[in-house]
């Protein structure tokens, strides 16, 4: 089979089987890329994943770009990425059409009333997990509090906080600002 087509289809399959993203994806990538296709060694995959987590963007997308470019250069990277987002495009578009057609019904609105409460708790749980990894000392605690309060009460773009906190991280770690 044509390698580009193979990249597209394999990552489309990963996209369909991924539910929730992030860490949930690692076992699926392992099975498809390491065991089935032999496209990457186990350690390579862990590397891609680690870099995917500490670069901007969605981890699944970053991994797809890496593997694609390894085999077919820039075009491969792009094709693999399009593969991983393709199922989302189809499924969400169909679902959004259905939801908007029924959203005026009373019971559908009630259902979403309950769902939104659940979303609050899901975000809360995700934050607790992230917090444990991110807030490791006094400086990171201060950054966390300032950003949380600043983003809630001031209407400035999140971009500002992201750029500032990266600068603070570099300053603290490299230029000997005391802890």
């Amino acid at each position, binding site marked *: 089979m044509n390698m580009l087509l193979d990249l597209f289809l394999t990552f489309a399959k990963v*996209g*369909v089987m991924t*539910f929730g*993203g*992030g860490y949930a994806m690692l076992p699926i990538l392992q099975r498809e890329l390491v065991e089935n296709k032999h496209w990457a060694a186990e350690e390579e995959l862990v590397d891609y994943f*680690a*870099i995917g987590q*500490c*670069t*901007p*963007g*969605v*981890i*699944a*997308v*970053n991994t797809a*770009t890496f593997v694609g*470019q*390894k085999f077919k250069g820039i075009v491969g990277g792009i094709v693999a990425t399009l593969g*991983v*987002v393709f199922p*989302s495009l189809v*499924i*969400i*578009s169909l679902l*959004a*059409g259905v*939801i908007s057609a029924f959203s005026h019904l009373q019971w559908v609105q*009630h*259902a*979403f*009333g*309950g*769902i*939104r*409460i659940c*979303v*609050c*708790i*899901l*975000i809360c749980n*995700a*934050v607790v997990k*992230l917090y444990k990894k*991110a*807030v490791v000392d006094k400086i990171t605690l201060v950054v*966390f509090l300032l950003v*949380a309060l*600043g*983003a*809630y009460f001031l209407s400035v*773009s999140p*971009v500002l*906080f*992201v750029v500032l*906190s*990266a600068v603070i*991280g*570099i300053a603290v*770690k490299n230029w000997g600002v005391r802890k």
Partner: protein
Amino acid sequence: MMLYLRLFYEFFKAGLFAIGGGMATIPFLYDMADATGWFTYNDLANMIAVGESTPGPVGVNMATYVGYVTGQSAAGIPGAILGAVIATLGLVTPSIIIILIIAAFLKSFRDNRYVDSAFYGLRPASTGLIVAAGLSVAVSNLFFTDTLAQGLSLAVLNWKGWILAVILWVLTNKVKKTKGLHPIIFILASAVVGVVFSM
């Protein structure tokens, strides 16, 4: 045409600055709701739920959904499909560019102390941003904000919502049998509770 350019630009920005997976996209979507008026906070909470309960990475799902809804209100179904495609491409374009650059010097990137130290600051900031966005969802769903304008009273409290929230928190954190379950199960159960108790 302007709408689609703006859609691409907004999601390009989210793709470039959202660090640490799906939830990190949420603060940018809130910022988008404020800045563009394309959707409300409540719409957004629905989009998060759909993104969590469908196959595919959450961040990508949410971008597709936002693009679909925004395009639909401008130009019907064809506009919706175009919007979904453009928002999704906007989100992944920065990743593609950055990863292709990094792939060229993979080893030196991972061992670079500046990269490492930037993330020392970025991780708590990203968490803080999600907290702020989460607070906005929580306030608009656990309180009746339109009643709040008429003065402070118990009527402001969405008490059914609070009860469900406490139950869900206990089930997802404290009960051994249920805390490992996939989020979609809690989302579906909450939908049923919402219908039964007219939430």
